[in-house]
Structures are given as C-alpha cells and as structure tokens.
C-alpha cells in the first residue's frame, strides 16, 4: 500500500544507495545479486529483524509479485515462487528488481520514511513524497549506481548490472 511520507530527492537517494552498498560490504560499482542477498540480510547491520519466504504463486494476489510486511517482530519479505525462480534461474532483470525493491522497504522504513497517516495520498501528491516511488527509485539507485553507469549505454547497463531494458533506459534519463 502506498503512503505519503517525508520528501526526498535523487541526491539523497544516491547517498542512501551508497550507504546500503556499504552496509552490505559491496563496492560502489559492483553488480548485486538480490537472491544471494536475501540469505545474508539477518547478518547485516540494521537488517537483523528482516526475514524472507518464498511462497506459492497463489499465496499472494495476482498483481502482487512480492511484498514486505512489518510486525512487532520485524519485517517479513514474501516473494512469489515465479518471481524468485525468474531471478534465480533466468536472472531476469525485472524479477531481480522486484526482490531488491522489497529489500529496500525495511531499509527505507529504518531511514525514517514513515507513513503520514493524517494525509491522504492524492493525484497532487508529488512522487518524491510517495513511499512506493521512493522505494522504487532507491532500488534502481542501488542496482545501477549513478557514478558507474554514467556514460554507459542501456545495453551495457543491462549486461553489467542484470537489470531490465526498461530499468536501464530509465537510468539514462536522470
């Protein structure tokens, strides 16, 4: 579910992406495998309370490839079997992005992007105040670091970082 939250911008998101890579022990330009990252989460600083499950496709609604739920015990990421298999067996960029997107949810929450329940999301709410947009944009920044993708073609970005054509082309526009 989408919410209005505190505003951010691309500059901040790039700093958060660099912070995330640093927490994971990745360099600022190497490609990330979200599937392998799932098992490492409880060992990473700030992610001790994040768990994941791969669920049968009918366990989540048709339009939900994966989700992250927060409870008193922590965060539970649930990933549909088809999405996990796509990322694991075929290394499909879109599926890999779905997984990193869900990993970003607890990170963004811990960074203080809490839902502002007193305000309703409207068409006028700018994207930089929308939780889902922030998570999506941060996932892109994490998978395709700005500095190291500068000057590269969409094909190169796709090949090096294992993202979809759509994501690579989007990277070139900002």
């Amino acid at each position, binding site marked *: 579910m989408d919410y209005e939250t505190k505003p951010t911008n691309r500059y901040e998101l790039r700093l958060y992406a660099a912070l995330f890579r640093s927490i994971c022990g990745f360099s600022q330009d190497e490609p990330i495998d979200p*599937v*392998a990252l*799932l*098992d*490492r989460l*409880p*060992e990473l600083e700030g992610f001790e309370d994040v*768990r994941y*499950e*791969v*669920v*049968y496709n009918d*366990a989540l609604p048709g339009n939900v490839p994966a989700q992250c739920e927060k*409870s008193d*015990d*922590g965060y*539970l990421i649930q990933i549909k*079997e088809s999405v*996990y*298999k796509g990322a*694991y*067996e075929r290394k499909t960029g879109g599926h890999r992005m779905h997984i990193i997107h869900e990993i970003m949810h607890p990170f963004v929450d811990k960074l203080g992007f809490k839902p502002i329940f007193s305000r309703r999301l409207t068409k006028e709410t700018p994207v930089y105040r929308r939780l889902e947009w922030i998570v999506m944009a941060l996932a892109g920044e994490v998978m395709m670091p700005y500095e190291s993708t500068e000057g590269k073609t969409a094909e190169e970005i796709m090949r090096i970082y294992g993202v979809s054509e759509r994501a690579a082309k989007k990277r070139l526009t900002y």
Partner: protein
Amino acid sequence: MGYTKYGEFMRVLRVKEHEVMGDTAKMLGVKIPFVSAVESGKRNVPEEWVPMIVEHYKLDQEKEAELLDAIESSKTQMKLNLVHASNTQRRLAVQFQRSFERLDEDTAEAIMKLLNKEDQ
C-alpha cells in the same frame, strides 16, 4: 516470525557455501516454497533430507549432530505411537493433546521435572 533453528542452520550454511535457497530446493528435489515453508517452521523437516544435506555439504559428525538438534527443535508436529500403549497411557496421551495449548510455563516445567525423574 523468524526462521526456525533448522532454517537458521541452513541459511548460515548456504551463505558459507555461496548457495541460495533455490540451490537447496534443487539439491533436495523439491519446490522452493516447500523448502521455505520448512525453514520458517510451517512444515516438518522430512527425514530423508538429513543424509542429502550431510552429503551435499560434507558435514562432519559435529555439524551433523548440530543439524539433528536443529531439526528436533524445529518440529511443528509430533507423532505418538500408541500401538503398545496401555489404556492409562492412551488416556494420558489424549489428555495431554487436549491440554497442550493451555499449558502455562510453570506447569510445563513441573511436568518435565516429573518426567525427567521417571527417566533417572
């Protein structure tokens, strides 16, 4: 929420061996959601998995004992063999099953003490 002791054992093993849950599912010949359900405690660990895990990860005796202990601690269901049980034992088993969810910690501790005394 969280992983069972078995789930945690397997997670650590995979990280060490640079494997992922998909690899575990392939090795065991089952679907990934089933592996996931077992690791999160929704299903029991199938007995036939033990030798497969021991062989695949080349676990030494100490690690194998750790695996068995993790499996024991992660059990979600237990079976009681009542074939040779007396009527009193059967009544006790049924009563225990009925009362199990309502047992408070103190009563559980007291019963365990009593049963341990019987073993000695």
